[in-house]
């Protein structure tokens, strides 16, 4: 299982993560990104891609 964490203090709601991988992230009512839970290891590449694309570098994948 992947651990995807969005640093809520850093996230500015650009939504690049959602645009990269719609099923891995969602913007909540405050416009902050919430990662999907229970994502399998086979999605590591997609999750890391989204983390690379975040303008605030707010996403960590482990």
């Amino acid at each position, binding site marked *: 299982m992947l651990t995807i964490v969005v640093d809520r203090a850093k996230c500015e709601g650009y*939504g690049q993560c959602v645009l990269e991988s719609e099923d891995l992230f969602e913007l909540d009512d405050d416009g902050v990104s919430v990662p999907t839970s229970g994502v399998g290891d086979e999605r590591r590449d997609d999750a890391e891609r989204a983390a690379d*694309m975040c303008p605030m570098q707010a996403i960590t994948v482990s």
Partner: protein
Amino acid sequence: MNGVVVAGGGLGALRTAESLRASGFAGPLTVIGNEDSMPYNRPPLSKGALLNGVDVEALEFPRKSSVDDVDWMVNSTITKTDLTDRLLTLDTGEAVPFDALVIATGIRPRRLPFPGPTQGRFVLRTAADAAAVRARLRRELNLVILGSGFLGCEVAATARALGAHVTVIAADHEPMVRPLGDELSSALRRRHEAQGVHFRLGHTIEATNGGDQVRSVTLDDGTELLADVLIEAVGSVPNVEWLEGNGLDLSDGVETDSAMRVPTELAPVVAVGDIARHPNALFGSAPRRVEHWSIPTETGRRAGQTLAQILRGESPSEAPFTAMPSFWSDQYALRIQSFGMPGLATDISLVDGDLNGPCIVEYRDPLGLVGVVGIDRTSDLIPYRKEIAARSHC
């Protein structure tokens, strides 16, 4: 084995190094950059960091553990390259040998050669530039910005938030007009004007005036404007001089194929980021430089795969490069997001909302949707992005 040397210490350098490791290259890897910090994020330099103060450590990119063993040389300028001998020369005279080379030296701001005092003239590319500008910005300062592209407009918005008097001078007839088109750019100009920014469009600066320090600027129609600080944001010059003498086409950055390989028989060479003139099959076969933040990551990923394949003795993947160009800009509370290449459009139409509020604008060419721009509508752009990605490859 001398391994791979990555020239330039920015985002493109970092992503290429990470991709080389992810693609199985385990040999020696050296990154040589001429700034004094590890790769850091530039976009905040005209936005949040210019507003709140520049802390370069806070802007550094997190680095994947796969590049922990990379030799990072900072404060080192490459002055010369010999692709035949596979040797770089540094400003210290030191020679650095390589088996394969990554070109990631980016661009620098273009300077216009008008006469007059130079103290008080600034550009904005590096953290050091931003810190120098930040130290001058204050309430009631007379700030003149030359250039009305995204960078000039972002600086105008930030400087207004800090209480400066801001005038933007540009040869173009509307701000950000080349990528966005007439209607959206004039609507954005009105939003800037409502925030107190003055525009002198269709003009350029002939001279700066003052003693040592700039006090005013003279425009091409003879008008004189007070200027305590002048920021020049009039485009860029690729950092290619260190590559001269190797028979490469350096007319506008460094040309590559779709695998980011630079056409030369002398050595394995790839180019990435702002400096790379690369083709994108979504937008025809013409290679282009694209100065968007997403490009160093996308081209770096591909270039790392290409070099790792070449160094294993394989021929690199010939797959077309089809990464989606993505660009955003923050001005006041506005969030401008673009996908694709709106600047290539032959037909532009507002498809949702109001140009003076949240909206979505479509950019089409004869083959279909070529770009989309949303103002405060980022998450609604997903279907448009998909439509651009589905363009037939040409």
